[in-house]
């Protein structure tokens, strides 16, 4: 059991899968094993794929993966779907579009539920990226939940972020929504055989023209028809261009540093939340404070002061 990290480094699928489960369950074993594999990480290039529901993210990932496999690269795929906030269950259906990859031993696919995380990612996704990286994958593709407008956490983990859109999404006001339209390193207009593709590309390009970030690089807009394998090679090349750009302008290390910052914050957040809400000593105190708040015997701010005071003393 304690050899699980060593076996992950050898690329053993069952050990990879098991360690991911431990990470998702925040088991004590996960922490000890993650410590062991960290020195072997940092080699995989991480690509985030986000975009509206039904834009064809899974199909795009399937075709991109086939192209990377043709180039002899090993690929890890993390496909995230929402966890129900009511039942805690999740229906993870991204593999439907990728069935042929199931038996390719150069590809490892893991479906994850968000398990209460907002922002389009799953809490354990940082661990899963490290595990796949350590297991020898050259490319890790992270598919977020189908986003509305605020699920932008993928930029914390990805080296290159693709925002996938489809023609006919609505007028240009809709596309200036804060957040989702600010995170793209590359825009992909998929399903480009539909009508309205020229308008979608033109609107995106005019948006990019009025944006003021990264003056030395203009965010490219690509069109693809993933189902017909069109535009995939160009997309893979554009990702390579972005990678080279990051390295040339010394932005690559800064991106990685941001990922580790987000990962550290997430580990601390999880541990603190577990400490306050799961530990038997604190749970009772929290419950009684909630009762007191309900009865107006104490206000929520004072209750928070009391709990945090106990931790920080």
């Amino acid at each position, binding site marked *: 059991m304690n050899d699980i990290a060593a076996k992950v480094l050898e690329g053993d699928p*069952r050990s990879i899968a*098991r360690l991911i489960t431990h990470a*998702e369950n925040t088991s004590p074993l996960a922490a000890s094993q993650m410590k062991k594999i960290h020195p072997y990480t940092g080699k995989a290039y991480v690509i985030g794929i986000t975009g509206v529901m039904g834009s064809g993210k899974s199909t795009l990932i399937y075709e991109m993966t086939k192209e990377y496999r043709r180039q002899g690269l090993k690929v890890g795929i993390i496909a995230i779907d929402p966890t129900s906030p009511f039942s805690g*269950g999740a*229906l993870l259906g991204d593999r*439907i579009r990728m069935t042929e990859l*199931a*038996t390719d031993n150069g590809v490892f696919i893991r479906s994850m*539920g968000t398990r209460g995380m907002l922002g389009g990612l799953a809490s354990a996704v940082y661990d899963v990226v490290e595990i796949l990286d350590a297991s020898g994958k050259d490319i890790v593709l992270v598919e977020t939940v189908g986003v509305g407008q605020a699920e932008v956490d993928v930029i914390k983990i990805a080296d290159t972020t693709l925002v996938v859109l489809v023609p006919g999404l609505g007028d240009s006001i809709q596309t200036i929504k804060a957040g989702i339209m600010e995170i793209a390193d590359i825009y992909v207009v998929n399903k480009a055989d539909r009508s309205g593709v020229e308008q979608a590309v033109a609107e995106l390009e005019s948006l990019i023209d009025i944006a003021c970030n990264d003056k030395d690089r203009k965010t490219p807009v690509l069109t693809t028809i993933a189902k017909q394998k069109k535009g995939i090679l160009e997309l893979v090349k554009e990702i390579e261009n972005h990678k080279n750009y990051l390295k040339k302008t010394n932005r690559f290390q800064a991106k990685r540093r941001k990922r580790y910052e987000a990962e550290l914050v997430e580990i601390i957040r999880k541990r603190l939340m577990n400490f306050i809400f799961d530990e038997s000593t604190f749970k009772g105190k929290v419950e009684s404070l909630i009762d007191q708040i309900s009865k107006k015997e104490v206000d929520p701010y004072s209750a928070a002061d009391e709990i945090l005071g106990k931790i920080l003393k």
Partner: protein
Amino acid sequence: MNEKIRVLVAKPGLDGHDRGAKIVARALRDAGMEVVYTGLHQTADMIVETAIQEDVNVIGLSLLSGAHMTLFKDVTSLLKKKGLNDVLVIGGGIIPDEDVSNLKKAGVSGVFGPGTHCDDIVKFIRKNVKK
């Protein structure tokens, strides 16, 4: 610790009827489980590799074509060959009563035909899942 039961719902073979599988997948989700649904036309290889990568506790196979004796057994024997002894396998679909005991011998622990209440499947999984 925050453990969830993970279930793979798969349709082996050449059978395009996935309404039942989808209803069961939804019911298991509503019972708080994480359900990986892979869609139609899965081979035993695909199902077992997916079960490994997704580290599921349960595999639910659905088949209405009549080929369950072959296809369900393909999955359970491949699981044995790969050493996945801690995965609970259940099956559903149009399964004649006389096949049930043979399937159980082959490692399909529970068989649920038409008219099964979803709650019974949930209860069966909770009771028999190997942690």
